[in-house]
């Protein structure tokens, strides 16, 4: 696997749509010195306007739907959406709850799924790399 086309660092915007924080803690673990993804240029940013990847956790409660759509629209192209955790992937323990509008792929298009409750940091890093590879393909398509 070679990463050549996308020369910049990969910036990620993290959005919690009603998660129990389990996945969010694992995402933070990815940034700790033990895993330290920033050495690969992967880092969390505070605004979707700076992001390449939208990283979503949580099963998407109804009140979050317009916010999810708005944040997705605010990310510049080419962009990818990555879901971390069972809740965002298929509802998890909140499946068929009255307050849910998700899972996320019913609201915005999703490119990478990282299942788990919560997924291990290694799985999240693997998911980000998958997103990176897909993003490179998108960039190449736009160039050609």
């Amino acid at each position, binding site marked *: 696997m070679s990463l050549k086309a996308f020369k910049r660092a990969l910036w990620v915007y993290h959005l919690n749509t009603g998660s129990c924080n389990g996945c969010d803690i694992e995402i933070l673990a990815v940034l700790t010195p033990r895993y330290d993804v920033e050495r690969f240029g992967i880092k969390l940013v505070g605004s979707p306007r700076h992001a390449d990847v939208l990283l979503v956790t949580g099963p998407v409660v109804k009140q*979050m739907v317009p916010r*999810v759509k708005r944040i997705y629209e*605010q990310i510049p192209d080419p962009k990818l959406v990555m879901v971390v955790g069972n809740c965002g992937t298929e509802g998890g323990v909140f499946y068929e709850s009255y307050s849910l509008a998700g899972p996320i792929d019913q609201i915005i298009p999703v490119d990478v799924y990282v299942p788990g409750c919560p997924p291990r940091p290694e799985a999240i890093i693997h998911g980000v790399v998958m997103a990176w590879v897909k993003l490179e393909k998108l960039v190449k398509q736009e160039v050609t």
Partner: protein
Amino acid sequence: MTFILESGYAFWNPLIWLIAFAVVMVVVYFFRRRGKKEYKKDTAQTRIFLCGEEVPEAEQRHIRVGNIYWGFFETLKEYYNQVLRPHTGIINDYILWFVAITAISAIILLIAGLAK
């Protein structure tokens, strides 16, 4: 011509400022050029980001600076009620005030001059 202005303690040279300005502009241009160009104009990608919330109109989201002086205005309410009344914003009223004050001043000066 050196363009140097010396005060005895320090000096001021516009050329240094121009060079510094040019250097800053080059740095700004460098960072601006490295910015993302892929965004689509006139879409949500150029709108203000407010944690995903809908951004209200400028009049609704900005707090007027006058609100800082609320206590001041509240304390001097009676005074301001009196002072604001003549401030109609109509230029004719202001001219009328000007003419009236000038006439009164002229009369006072005239009387004072005659009394001497």
